[in-house]
């Protein structure tokens, strides 16, 4: 046990005051809020119907004294089986259809002033590119930050197989399908950090593909994004040199260095992220070092080769340098 996760630190951070991953019933996004209301309405109605049916069933099977005549029994079929469900379902359907267009408005209210985030699913991580209304795009990975109170448009793609993007407390999911570009719009109403899992089975380590979603106050978000646009400074320069010498740069991109690979996640500001390894490890030097040494132990089916042939000191230095890229 404990082979795949040992992330108390990360989940504590993620939970940000709440115990556990945030459920769809504790919404902090507009869409999730409306769907939660829909759910509670359906749940209470459903519970009443279930109790009614079971009571009738028990009465008919065990407790009734006399058999009913056929005419009245037929009438029960008509009213209980046809009229009641038709009316109830019609009302419920109308409610849901009325909700639908408002849940994900793209065309109205959004204009070109909105932030767009392009997210590409890959086995088993997420590439994230921010397209702010002004300024150049900012690339990141495995963490999505968004401003509270502003509608954000997400562009969802896949580079290999089908994945599905989901932040439970913010809104419903949307698949990422090769050859398609799907769109989703989310509006966070409260700040917080949440876990977002990949919701469509995508291969061996589907269970280990997650990300952290952070809703921030708009001002904090903007200054954070500005920081991300510039290369990070890390103290352990020797680790940076080792990173390049051992060829890590052929797969990974680190802004401001010669590491220009595009196969693996962008590591430019790795140190500033809540988790590493796509939402599964706490962001500590130790965790980074373990991932570098034996990725397949932590994430089976991962494309990254093992680097346990490197001297442990080198791995530690690289990990320290990466952790320092704030």
């Amino acid at each position, binding site marked *: 046990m404990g082979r795949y996760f040992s992330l108390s630190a990360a989940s504590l951070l993620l939970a940000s005051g709440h115990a556990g991953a945030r459920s*769809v019933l504790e919404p902090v996004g507009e869409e999730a809020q409306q769907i939660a209301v829909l*759910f509670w309405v359906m749940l209470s109605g459903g519970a009443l119907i279930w109790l009614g049916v079971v009571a009738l069933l028990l009465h008919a099977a065990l407790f009734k004294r006399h*058999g009913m005549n056929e005419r009245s029994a037929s009438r029960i079929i008509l009213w209980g*089986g046809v009229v009641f469900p038709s009316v109830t379902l019609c009302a419920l359907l109308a409610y849901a259809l009325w909700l*639908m267009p408002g849940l994900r408005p793209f065309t109205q209210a959004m204009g070109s002033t909105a932030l767009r985030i392009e997210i590409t699913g890959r086995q088993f991580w997420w590439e994230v590119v921010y397209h702010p209304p002004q300024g150049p795009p900012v690339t990141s990975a495995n963490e999505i930050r968004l401003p509270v109170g502003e509608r954000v448009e997400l562009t969802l793609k896949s580079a290999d197989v089908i994945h599905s993007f989901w932040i439970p407390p913010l809104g419903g999911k949307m698949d990422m399908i090769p050859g398609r570009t799907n769109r989703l719009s989310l509006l966070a109403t409260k700040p917080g950090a949440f876990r977002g899992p990949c*919701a*469509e089975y995508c291969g*061996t380590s589907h269970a280990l593909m997650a990300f952290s979603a952070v809703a921030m106050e708009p001002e904090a978000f903007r200054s954070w994004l500005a920081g991300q646009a510039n290369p990070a400074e890390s103290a352990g320069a020797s680790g940076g040199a080792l990173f390049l010498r051992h060829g890590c740069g052929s797969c990974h991109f680190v802004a401001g260095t010669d590491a220009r690979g595009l196969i693996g996640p962008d590591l430019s500001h790795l140190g500033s992220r809540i988790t590493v390894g796509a939402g599964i490890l706490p962001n500590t030097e130790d965790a980074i070092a373990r991932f570098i040494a034996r990725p397949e132990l932590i994430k089976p089916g991962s494309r990254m080769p093992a680097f346990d042939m490197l001297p442990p000191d080198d791995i530690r230095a690289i990990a320290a340098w990466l952790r320092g890229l704030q």
Partner: protein
Amino acid sequence: MSAAIKERSRKEYKAQEERLRAVWANPAGWRYWTSVNNYQIGLWYGSAAFVFMLFAGALALLMRLQLAVPDNDFLSADLFNQAFTLHGTVMMFLFAVPIFEAVAIFLLPPMLGAREMPFPRLGAFGFWSFFLGGIFVCGSIFFNAAPSSGWFMYPPLATDKELSGIGADIWLLGLSFIEVASIAAAIELIVGIMKCRAPGMRINLMPLFAWYLLIVAGMILFAFPPLIAGDLLFEMERMFDWPFFDAARGGNPLLWQHLFWIFGHPEVYIIFLPAVALMAMIVPTFSQRPIVGYSWIVLAAVGTGFLSFGLWVHHMFATGLPQISLAFFSAASEAVAIPTGVQIFVFIATMLAGRVIFSTPMLFGTGGLAIFVIGGLTGVMVALAPFDWQAHDTYFVVAHLHYVLIGGMLFPVVAGLYYYYPLIEAKKLSDRLGRLAFWLMFCGFNIAFFPMHLSGLRGMPRRVFTYPAEIGWDWLNLISTAGAFIFAAGVLVVVFDVLRPKHREPRGEVNPWNAGTLEWISEPEENWGVRSIPIVRSRYPLWDQKDLARKVNEGRYYLPDAEEGQREGLVTSVLDADPIQVLRVGGTSHVTIVSALSLGAAFIALTFHWWIATALAAIICLCAVIYWLWTGTAEIPEKPEKDVGLGLSLPLYASGPDSVGWWAMFITMVGDGTAFASLVFGYFFYWTIHADFTEGIAGPDAVWSLAAAILFAAAWGLMVAARTINRRGATPAMRGLLVLSLLTTVAASAAGFAGPWSPGMDPTSHVYPAIVWILVIWVLAHAAVGTLMQAYCLARSLAGRLTPKHDMDLSNVVLYWHFLLVTAVITFAVIGLFPAAM
């Protein structure tokens, strides 16, 4: 009556009974396995399906162990993925669908007062295909080669050879093989229910079980072929790199999802309706009165059957289709709850109007209903697109589908097992063990699956092999695991109850529950179904027709004898069940096993790309099937008519729509046409998703396509002429027309091939040439079968087995050609004209 006459008629009666028994007897020794009798086939089918179910259940327990605690490493990721893929696949394809086929084959003939299903050898063939395919698919996990892409096999994960290995091929080919078996069963059920009921069993008197099965068989006919078409595209991509689902070359993974779910959602009802059908037999028996709302059940069965085809996109709510499309499917998914509700209220009304005896079958039945209603209500929830965006692919859906399938299918099936077990062994199962099993299963089930609603809402996606601690899923999963083991213990009690030796118990009554329907006349020791075929005058003949059982068993009705040593049953009219023909069905034969095994060998060899072995096995299979047809079908009887008793004489031969063979061909071709329609759907699907779906590639030449269409029409015309001329007695002219038609077909095929060949369309380059080629290949393969049929008719005519009066072969082949004509004309019009028209 003098004593001498009495003595003679008693002897005569004995002799009749002996002849009948001998004709229907099972072969002894190892040859027992060549039996085709519906009791044996039904029993084998059902037992095999149950064993597969236990196997899949064991896989589920392994999965529950892995998920009991967070960060577990009891199973590796890969093994877990194989386990859940196989669990879903086996439960769906090797248990849920086959178990109903088994029950139907076992129960329908005695319930309808028939001797046999109309095509017993086809039934046996279906069973052996299913059994072999099932072993192949299940066995793969012991070689670490099981499919691991989930039971709906989404490409590109499942089409990528690096990501999915041989498991995906095993899944595709093994299951294609089983789908063939299901379609075989559908043909058998439709013809059996429509044409082989006891005289007088009008459609308003048919047992509800038969109504349900009729609808379900019809659904199979329209639901399975799209999956077969999808399988074909899928396997072409995996084997030959035709890019149907590869986005880089114009393909699209969503086409698979459409085809899979056009199958997949009706499938749920194909599973659910037969289970409700069992309830519709059990509830009246234990309410000791006829069902209230017979017509309402027919409404519900037919309505569900249709509506279930308008639900498939609700499995694709998160794929980013336009909201208006999603909304249509939300609407239909809500509507389907209405007929489902009707059925529940029919049962409640029947219980309200009767005096309920609360036996073990009723316990399982009503308990299942209580569970199912929860599944139905969560179904109404997830059918609404907005809520599904949250619930989709989470444990909420896992809970929902298990509430539906276990409450709606497994519990009624166990109820049916307790109810119908006396028909297998003339003994009841234990009431005490039954009640124990029920409470273990009922409690275990709810403990296991109820918490899953919550873990899903807390964000737990399905198909995760592990999860981190401290995000609030751990104790929910631990409870689920505990419940799963309690549930499994209940299932084991049922298994023990069935398997425990019962030879010390006395033989029970023939109709221990005092049921009203015909199947309760038959005795498990006899293979003949009914001793004589009765005249039915009630929905519950055993309640309403005094002395019926005695008279049937004294051979006082139709066909009490088998003078000619043939297995015989009656064919009756569809609406009023007037007797119209004596049907001679095939008896014990090894040809069914040989053809099933060779077909299986062909599929298996194909999985491993052993081309020569595939070809050899396919040839053996073809020879076996031709031998089977030649020796076992359309035989010219030794006399035109036969006295069936009660002063009625009926013909022994029928051709055209009067014959069951014609209907079997018609039904097969409807299924075949549905598969073809799915391919055409694929063509237009690619057109809609691309601005220019030809990608500038030159399409098939319009002239060649037109020529092919005209030549196919000519070949069809010659076939129709051959049939007409043959009926007029001009046998040589008929032979000449057959040869001419065969040659025309070859020319038509060549022209069809030249269409995409002449511009050099490369099917691996882009999806447009690939979909054109697959349509052309579909027509050419059907044309090849068509020529085989023409040659077969020619040979039959030369051998004197096809005459102007006995032209069943020719008439069935012409029916095939009607469908072939439509297929060819649509194909060549679409590929030749559509791109130019756009």
